């Protein structure tokens, strides 16, 4: 595969990129911290054992960077067939309620701009006859819950969009993979108390890579979150008003 990744310097993106590098996929990294991208590129080159990995600037809060970033990746890889977006912003509901600019940034990055980037990637992939678009949404978008109202709303919208892409473009060769991680222990969730069934980035990466290879439109990771969310979706409103998760 020839893969463009946004968000591969940290967390689940880092774990996924390592699995891809280890099996010989060609990678191009996008992100907003070029020094950090270079460090990750060297890490992945050592894991791959041969070849070089390029990196370019792309910031989810700077939509004007998207087109150039994809062009740069296409040039470096001589065309790509897979786009993986694991980047996103996160803040707790309390932080978002208090800070207007943080709220605007999160909603813009995780919903509007992620979709803008997906649209550009979709057009490029369809133009070459198809490919895979793998985007990390969240189980937070499955049911509105008190601790993740704003973040969950952005992710719900994103999941909705990705499902629509799958409906409309699968026949034309575009395979959309919407990843819905449960609680995973990474830098993003640092300091939060892990609930039962918390996952590890390496385990999530294995599940996601399998889903990409098989073109599954929706994947929960770790898998148990599919059943947890089924339960939570079925809870009546009266219960959701009372509980704190």
């Amino acid at each position: 595969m020839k893969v463009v990744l946004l968000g591969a310097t940290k967390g689940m993106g880092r774990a996924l990129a390592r699995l891809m590098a280890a099996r010989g996929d060609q990678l191009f990294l996008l992100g907003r911290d070029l020094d950090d991208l270079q460090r990750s590129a060297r890490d992945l080159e050592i894991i791959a054992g041969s070849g070089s990995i390029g990196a370019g600037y792309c910031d989810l809060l700077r939509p004007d960077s998207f087109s150039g970033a994809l062009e740069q990746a296409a040039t470096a890889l001589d065309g790509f067939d897979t786009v993986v977006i694991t980047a996103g912003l996160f803040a707790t509901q309390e932080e978002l309620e208090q800070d207007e600019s943080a709220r605007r940034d999160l909603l813009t990055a995780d919903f509007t701009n992620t979709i803008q980037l997906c649209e550009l990637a979709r057009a490029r992939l369809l133009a070459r006859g198809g490919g895979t678009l793998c985007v990390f949404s969240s189980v937070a978008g499955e049911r509105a819950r008190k601790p993740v109202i704003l973040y969950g709303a952005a992710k719900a919208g994103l999941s909705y969009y990705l499902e629509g892409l799958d409906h409309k473009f699968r026949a034309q060769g575009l395979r959309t993979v919407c990843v819905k991680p449960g609680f995973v222990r990474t830098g993003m969730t640092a300091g939060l108390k892990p609930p039962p069934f918390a996952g590890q980035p390496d385990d999530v990466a294995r599940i996601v890579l399998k889903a990409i290879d098989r073109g599954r439109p929706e994947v929960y990771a770790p898998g148990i979150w599919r059943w947890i969310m089924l339960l939570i979706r079925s809870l009546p409103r009266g219960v959701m008003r009372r509980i704190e998760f």
Partner: protein
Amino acid sequence: MESSPAAGDAGAVLAQARTSTVQLGGWGRYPMVEGHEEWSEDLQGSTQGAALTRGLGRSYGDASLPACTRDRVVNSSLADRFITFDPDTGVLRAEAGCPLWRVNRVFLPRGWFTPVTPGTHYVTLGGMVAADVHGKSHHRDGCFGEHVTLLKLRVADGRIVECSDEAERDLFRATLGGMGLTGHILEVAFRLRRIPSPWIWQESERTPNFEATLSSLQAAKTWPFTVCWADFLNKGSRAGRGIVMKGRWAEPHEAPKAPPSFRRPVTVPFVFPNWFLQPWMVQVFNWLNYLKHGPRLRAGIIHPETFWYPLDTVQYWNRVYGRRGFTQYQCVLPVDGGWSRHRAVLELLQRHRAPVFLCVIKDCGAEGRGTLSFPKPGISYALDMPVAPSTQPLVDALNEFVIAEGGRVYLAKDAFTRAEHFRAMEPRLDAWERVRRTWDPQRRLRSAQSVRLFGDQP
């Protein structure tokens, strides 16, 4: 607002303030303390102003625990990237949180392996430096620190310092085995070694009593890797019987053609109740283990993970001991006094009715570069025991014996040693404290262990 490209998803999280404290413990789960643990991929940034860095928490006692709840402890294990690898020299440089298992998975199939590995691969490179770990190869290859070429540290005043045997040598040597108290270890460069194949040729024999076990281990010095499991729960002439294992890397013509596949461990899902693990169960296990081996010498090719990391097949096996936790008492004793002095340890344990559920005996070679590194020439005993009210007096008695014999204990395992005992067995402590005073006069870097042993203020 935290920016978190590609991070884990907190959508499922319970509403929790991020500043809440957590229960922190070492591998022995004793002691447990309240503390703030900070996780970040950016180790260099997050160590600014922190009191201690910890990795995967495999030190058994209080070495990786904060001195007090106010202190900020940084967890390094998200900073796990390789930085450079030079195939000509074998020197690998990586971020300090890089776990040994990642190094093994990438480099073992390519014919490289670390010259020194502890008995678990769930350790970070930074932790391997801080404890200056040793393994089955100590009689030949020394500690991990012998193979470290460069360290990048954040020292107490906030500066970033690179040190090696050529530059800032005192700091470098005090950091090897310095339990993370001389500076936050940010990056580690060390030399990997070429191996003929990724498989191990192992020979093992069982030994009928304590003296036979020790003699057999001594006679195996010609092997690159030796270790011995011993049954310390047995009585009479059978006490201290065991199985001595000797290994070397297999030659290409002996080894299977396919590289070894890596194993996924099973996990102990919860902490067992305290009453679960009883001495009689371990006695039965020890009998079976001994009988299963059979009387004859066994030889053959085995999986490298089976040889190096037998306990890693079960994740969180420490939970089997229950909430009481357990301690591993590890000491090294010189051999010049003859085996009778060693038998005295066994007899002391039996007098105290010490429930030694696991005993691993290793051969130690020459003292290494680390100012405060544990090994010295002799025999090392690692004894796993559940924590009980009788543990402190037992450790005190063992330590008094070890001091009289000219031995010492291993800080990476320790949770019970008294400050005066440690000072008595460690003539090098003054030299180490001098270096620490130079780089950290206010003792900003500290741990629960440094409060207990070095008189730091909590």
